[in-house]
């Protein structure tokens, strides 16, 4: 496949190009025009659609191509996540449009029908369109179970009143619609043949510090909210950085490693505003409001459109740190995480796979692959428990006399990662410390030794990336937050690297921290994936509600452009869903995120313990 087209067709739709997660800025036209079409993600989709003859060159197409100034910022962002270089696709898009104009000059002017006229009256001329150059960028995602569906209209409301008026109008004309955040769930749920409401213009962030809340518009991303909160000395429980907060509550209740102490679902907010399915606005705190705190396992419909939520603020202390505790078995890691959760040690807790230090941290696939063996096979690190806490939490863990990777050692391992390829001194340690796994981590001066052996530096790590990008990445890796376990987990910018090699489909369940049950389900996920030849891996586990429950993610991967892999994945997902359903019925304690998908505003108790 032509390289720019290959790049375009491999966009993961994680919407990372819509947030300034590297501090390098975002595509200038995006925040001005708001439609995803004016971000690199949309331009790649548009280029692929044009190249494959799915849409004609339209008026908006010219505007979209013209507003890209080939600044190259998207290369930094996308390379960080997927190693893709979108600029090549941007150039190809501009070339395509230029060629088209030179050859025929025909530019399609889309018809404005009566409904569109009405929609434009509500939101303004620019913010409602039926132009296929825009519509096509809302028509698909890499979900293996979703059929591409081109909407007739894309609408970008700015206020709750506009949302209300749009819903009433669409209902009047019997037009189906989907409400879209950033579509970063990539589950195929934000497409509709009628209209798509993109909430990205609703970007208000209003702090009410006296009441420890921040009123967040439906278009605010987790990254931007966290950043604003951090600037004022607070933290919020945020999901994937590009996910829109309100949408994310609705479809997952928001869970993160911080859910160990901040909770999930209704724990995350104080109040929220909605527009009902018939277009009536309401607040959750209204006495006669629909009861969204309840949970109904058989109800899969969206109860209303969230237009803002008052999110809880959490205090941040100056002594917070992250610490990683390695384990050779899942049993040991689960026991430890449960111990921490029940004793309320740490504010964020996660049982991570051993590849956290390779797949997530390595700047390239190649390096991740090369050092995965060092961590997992040579050092025997199969699982890591990450705990983020204040000085008392960290001290308590250190007093347990477990081998640990503290912030300082983590930094040395991270920036010295390339030297881990041939770290004979490390593999020798594993060989010779059989009696107590990872006991070498307890050596006095182990961090000093690691720094000596690995020569950690931003320069060294940056040498791993494309030569043209090394200068940028050297400066990036030099930023303190890039090696800060607290920052990295608050903002979650590296978890998107899971999809670097292949698109990831996360299977998420809630259950008690019952080691045998978890091992059994983990084995079932693996068995199903292997039966269908699907790449798969353990994701993570985070304790909830003081260790009474946990959220467990297992990941399946696929080449989003390979029809065979898509077919295999469809079969595997079907079987996995049946398997989960079996455990839901059999145990009474296992819950699936699919049950929560439209009910994330519920009380966690109603979901977890009903």
């Amino acid at each position: 496949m032509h390289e720019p087209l290959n790049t375009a067709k491999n966009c993961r739709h994680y919407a990372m190009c819509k947030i300034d997660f590297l501090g390098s800025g975002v595509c200038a036209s995006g925040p001005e025009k708001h439609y995803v079409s004016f971000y690199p993600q949309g331009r790649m989709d548009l280029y692929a659609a044009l190249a494959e003859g799915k849409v004609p060159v339209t008026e908006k197409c010219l505007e979209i191509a013209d507003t890209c100034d080939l600044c190259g910022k998207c290369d930094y962002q996308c390379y960080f996540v997927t190693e893709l270089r979108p600029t090549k696709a941007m150039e190809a898009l501009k070339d395509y449009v230029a060629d088209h104009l030179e050859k025929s000059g025909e530019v399609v002017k889309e018809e404005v029908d009566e409904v569109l006229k009405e929609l434009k009256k509500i939101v303004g001329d620019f913010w409602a369109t039926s132009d296929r150059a825009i519509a096509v960028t809302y028509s698909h995602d890499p979900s293996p179970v979703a059929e591409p569906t081109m909407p007739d209209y894309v609408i970008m409301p700015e206020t709750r009143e506009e949302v209300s008026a749009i819903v009433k109008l669409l209902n009047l004309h019997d037009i189906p619609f989907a409400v879209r955040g950033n579509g970063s769930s990539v589950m195929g749920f934000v497409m509709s043949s009628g209209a798509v409401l993109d909430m990205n213009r609703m970007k208000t962030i209003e702090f009410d510090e006296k009441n420890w809340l921040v009123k967040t518009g439906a278009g605010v991303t987790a990254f931007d909210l966290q950043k604003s909160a951090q600037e004022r000395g607070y933290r919020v429980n945020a999901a994937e950085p590009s996910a829109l907060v309100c949408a994310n509550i609705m479809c997952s209740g928001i869970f993160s490693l911080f859910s160990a102490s901040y909770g999930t679902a209704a724990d995350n907010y104080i109040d929220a505003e909605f527009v009902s399915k018939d277009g009536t606005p309401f607040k959750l705190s209204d006495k006669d409001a629909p009861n969204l705190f309840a949970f109904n396992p058989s109800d899969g419909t969206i109860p209303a459109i969230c237009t803002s939520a008052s999110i809880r603020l959490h205090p941040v202390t100056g002594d917070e740190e992250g610490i990683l505790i390695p384990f050779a078995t899942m049993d040991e890691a689960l026991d430890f995480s449960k111990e921490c959760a029940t004793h309320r040690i740490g504010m964020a807790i996660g049982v991570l796979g051993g590849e956290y230090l390779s797949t997530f941290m390595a700047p390239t696939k190649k390096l991740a692959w090369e050092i995965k063996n060092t961590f997992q096979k040579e050092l025997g690190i199969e699982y890591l428990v990450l705990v983020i806490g204040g000085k008392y939490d960290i001290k308590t863990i250190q007093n347990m006399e477990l081998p640990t990777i503290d912030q300082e050692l983590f930094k040395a391992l991270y920036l010295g990662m390339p030297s881990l390829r041939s770290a004979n001194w490390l593999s020798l340690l594993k060989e010779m410390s059989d009696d107590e796994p990872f006991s070498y981590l307890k050596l006095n001066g182990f961090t000093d030794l690691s720094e000596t052996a690995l020569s950690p530096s931003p320069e060294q790590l940056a040498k791993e990336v494309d030569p043209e990008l090394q200068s940028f990445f050297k400066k990036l890796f030099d930023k303190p937050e890039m090696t800060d376990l607290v920052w990295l987990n608050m903002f979650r910018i590296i978890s998107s690297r899971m999809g670097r090699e292949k698109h990831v489909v996360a299977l998420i369940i809630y259950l008690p921290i019952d080691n045998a049950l978890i091992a059994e389900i983990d084995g079932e996920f693996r068995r199903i994936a292997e039966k269908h030849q699907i790449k798969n891996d353990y994701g993570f586990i985070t304790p909830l509600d003081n260790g009474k429950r946990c959220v467990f993610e297992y990941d399946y991967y696929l080449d989003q452009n390979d029809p065979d892999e898509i077919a295999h994945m469809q079969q595997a997902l079907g079987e996995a869903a049946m398997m989960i359903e079996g455990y839901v019925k059999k145990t009474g304690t296992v819950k699936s995120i699919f049950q929560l998908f439209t009910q994330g505003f519920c009380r966690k108790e109603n979901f977890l313990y009903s």
Partner: protein
Amino acid sequence: MHPHNTPTIALTGATGFLGSHLMAALLEKGYHVIALGRSTDDATLSQRIANILKWFGKEVPTGRLDTIEINFSQEALGLDRPKYKELCQASDQMIHCASDTSFSERRRQQVFDSNVHSLNHILKFAADARLQFFHYISTAYACGMNGTACKEQLPNTTDFVNVYEESKAQAEKNIATFCEENAIPHTIIRPTIVYGDSRTGRSLKFNALYYPIRSLMAIRDIYLNDIKNNGGKKSQMHGIKMDEDGYLFLPLKIVLPKSGGLNLIPIDYFVNAALQIIQNPGTGEIYHISNKTPVKLDEIVNYNEPFMKVKGVEIVYDDSPENYDRNPAEELFDRYIKAYLPYMHDNRVFDRTNTDRATSDLQPAAFNHDIFVRCMNYAVKMEWGEKLKRLGI
């Protein structure tokens, strides 16, 4: 009995260090060998044996080597009845060499399962096959920590350095009891620490003698990297520097609680001595294949200095090692050699009466600088065993 009147020997552990050398020597002497063992994920037993013989520069001899995949932990060695019966009929003698050599207390169950519990099935086989002789390859350290004079007798102590020694001692006692009760002639052969071939330096395993050197080399490389790539900033903090003569000055004290040495024998000597014992066995006898002159760690450090171009390594004898402040290099070295430390200041003297009689006073080559360099050069060439793994060994 083989048609040429040489006994057929069932051999376990033929893919290990001692067992592979015994196999090669037995084949060289014209014996018929039945190698009993298991496949790995990467290769069948036959492939593993063929790879090892290739390392010895030998082809798989036609008609004189059979391989049978067995499972020691199962009745009838995991074979079906006809195959088990066939094996019993074909075997004249057995050398049981397979062993779990882990020193790790954490692996106690696994070590005892391998070295003691599985033995019951091996001994049952010895009885079923009515073997002419059962030879058990043990370790000199099975005699435990019961004083400095170690007789060629069954262990009578419960004091051992590690679980490996303990399991081997228990195995010896079980073998002696079972064989006496079942009238199976048997020997117990106890080597001390075996290193590579004294004439060629070749070896298949790089532990014991090799660990301190390998450890020092890893530590040396850490600081050489620092000096080369970082201007030696970290090295300077710990007084580590490159001298003008091209030697790395690495101040590293190896603190030993008392004077003593390593009882080292080369593999070539072990094979010669063991074969002579097997050819001229005394039933129920124990044989120490050991060195009358243990090697002091000081000597090894001296040999190592020009080999590795490292100065500053020093042996200190003090029974209060906790009194020494350790720099990171020393901490790392201590961790590396922790499991082997007790064997580096060992004062035990191994009685060799039975061995000297059976081997006509055959003695091991005296360990010296040349042998050291030969062995270490080979170890480095083989990347401390990594290269052998890639060769399927």
